């Protein structure tokens, strides 16, 4: 499998982890704990990616859970032609997309509720942590906000590229569009992000 797709965990430093395919075979033999291992192996990577795609930790956690549940149901269809994580992420992508569509409807109703009640929804973002410099926190908040403002299709490909390090070809397979489109979207996503972060970019350049 693609070595990039093997997460570097502490356990791997001390114990030789079973290959994904072996765990999958065990799952299919009814050993559910093997699936637990697969979940543990990829949960954080998937979660962080989904968090960036969805822009919400809570949504990402739910989507992550849904993804693994769906993956379990479809495990027998995993042919091993691609890396397990790529396959998993395709499921996650579909899950995330359906979630973002649902969320759009919810967002509309939140806006409507706001108009009616004047109540602000609570911002659940947790970017700011103790011990984090305000500057770093602000920058990260700005980056995250800018990312969140990208359109879904731009944000997804950019996250897959920058955070997942996937190749265009892999991204194209996941989002089901031509490679040229992926290249174009990534470029446009970067352009938009650059514009949105222009003030901070200028600071960064000055340093």
């Amino acid at each position: 499998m693609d070595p990039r797709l093997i997460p570097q965990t502490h356990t791997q430093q001390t114990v030789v982890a079973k290959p994904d395919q072996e765990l999958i075979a065990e799952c299919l033999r009814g050993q559910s704990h093997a699936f637990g291992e697969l979940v543990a192996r990829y949960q954080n990577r998937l979660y962080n990616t989904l968090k960036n795609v969805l822009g919400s930790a809570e949504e990402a956690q739910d989507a992550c859970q849904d993804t693994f549940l769906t993956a379990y149901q479809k495990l027998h269809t995993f042919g091993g032609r691609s890396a397990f994580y790529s396959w998993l992420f395709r499921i996650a992508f579909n899950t995330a997309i359906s979630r973002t569509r649902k969320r759009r409807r919810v967002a509309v109703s939140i806006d409507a509720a706001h108009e009616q009640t004047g109540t602000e929804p609570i911002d659940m973002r947790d970017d700011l942590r103790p011990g984090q410099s305000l500057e770093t926190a602000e920058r990260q908040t700005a980056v995250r906000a800018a990312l969140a403002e990208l359109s879904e299709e731009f944000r997804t490909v950019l996250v897959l590229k920058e955070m997942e390090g996937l190749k265009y070809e892999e991204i194209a397979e996941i989002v089901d569009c031509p490679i040229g489109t992926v290249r174009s979207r990534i470029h446009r996503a970067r352009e938009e992000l650059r514009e949105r972060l222009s003030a901070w970019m200028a600071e960064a350049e000055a340093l």
Partner: protein
Amino acid sequence: MNTQQADELLSAYLDGELSAEEQSQIERWLAEDPARRKKLAQLQVLRGALQALPREELPAEFPSRVLKIIERNSLLSESAATTGDAIRSENGSKLAASHRWLRYGVRVLAPLATAALGLMFIFASNFFVEQAPTAPQSDAGPSRRNLEPRARERLKSQELAEHDAAPPGPAESLRFPSPEGVQRAEKFSLSRQENAGMPRGSEPAPSQSLEPGAPFPADPGGGGNQAPSIAASRPADDASHAPTEALREALAEQQANPDAVAVVRLYLERMTDAGNKALTPQEGEQLIIKDLRADRFEAVTASAQKSLVQSLNAPDGAPLPAVPGLEDPLLLIVGDLDAVEKWWDKIRTRDETESQIRVVAQVELQNFAKEVDGLTAEIVEATSQFLGRQTTGGNPDAAVAKSEEGRDLPVNEVVLEDSVGDGPAGVLAQLTLRSAGLPPTDESLRELTEAQAAGKSSERLAQRQESANKKQKRAQQDDGASPPPAGDKLVVGRAAPARRAGSARASRQTARVVIQFMARPPGPADAPPAEPASSAVVEPANGDRPAAVPTPSASPEIRPQ
């Protein structure tokens, strides 16, 4: 090339996704144009900023949470198995379910075995026959009471053969044993003894009296009620008879004549204040489930069969021969009677709506499933030991003594059911809540299924329940509707004491397990479906109970504490 295209190339260059030709072109531009170099630097900064976003970790228990939901969803999707064909699915993907079902199964068998719990086979030197009116009747049956044990066993073998040769009839396996049926059968057995020496053909047709017996859902029309069957019950005066002799003989019979007998039915009878009750679909709200056409059961049945059959054969070491057409005869389901009791109580006291109960019961069941995770090997071994002790003539009293220091009486429901009639078999398993007056609704099941499918956490389920509860109460207040009628006074759970005839002592016994051997249908196609050949009752006994365990009919009253 315009600026837009050039910038796109630059972006792709950053990603290393250019052709060699494009790459050298970009590198030339970069060498010549500081503005492009600046832009590339900005893209790199941007990349760094994105990659520097803090990463978080999901809770360590996330995998176990996922597994828990998977199990819960499995239970839901496996709902209400109604046909054996469902089990025959080609989908090999659901193998994981086998593990779970196996665990559940052994969960039942194991405590029975390890703790021994005074389990006793109440087996039958005394058979009573439930014959369909159309079944050919054999010659006069001798009174078994007057027979020596070996003679009884020989008679039993004859009966097995007779039933094997019985004419076509609906699959016995489709008829879930009803408590009424059991009780009637026992009555009939008495009447048969009284009529000793009479030709069997002259005996009443008890299958008619079994009419109220719940047909198995696979065949709600229930032709199965007419299937000839033999049930066995150990009379109170036959405590010395080694119950496992019958088991051993049935296995030997099967080994000698694979087409004759299939091991097969195992169900739990729950003791209630109205007497022992088998768990029948009609009696209860099926918690798990309505539509068990889930393909995953193929593997489940195979695994469960293998496990149980191996356990059964462990003492002799001889494998039970495969029965053609009966590759997958066993499946089981187990529920947590504690949860059942809890929620049944809520039904009775009308504290919860049916749908809420369904939701919560599923959660409870999942917790139960979680509990037993990892016990498989231990339980299988224990089962084997138990059966070994029994088949080697172990002393039931020893088992009882062991139970005194061992575990609690298992309070699980188990139903092992085959469907030999229409081919290989499905075993059905149902966890049912008795809910007279509260028939299950498709809507409530659907609601639950959706909730599960949405991957709601148990907290959310709890919120949902709370919300639904309020809604329900409001609705009742609004329209003044009277709450649904309370159902039967069902008592389940490990604490329900038994009050036995002739003894004022309370008993911890709450349930017994019935193992039934069923005859193979004699032929393919329109051949008659299986008929039970014999059965053994495994009854958890109390340490303080005498070895002579009364049959359920002899201990009619078991009351809640």
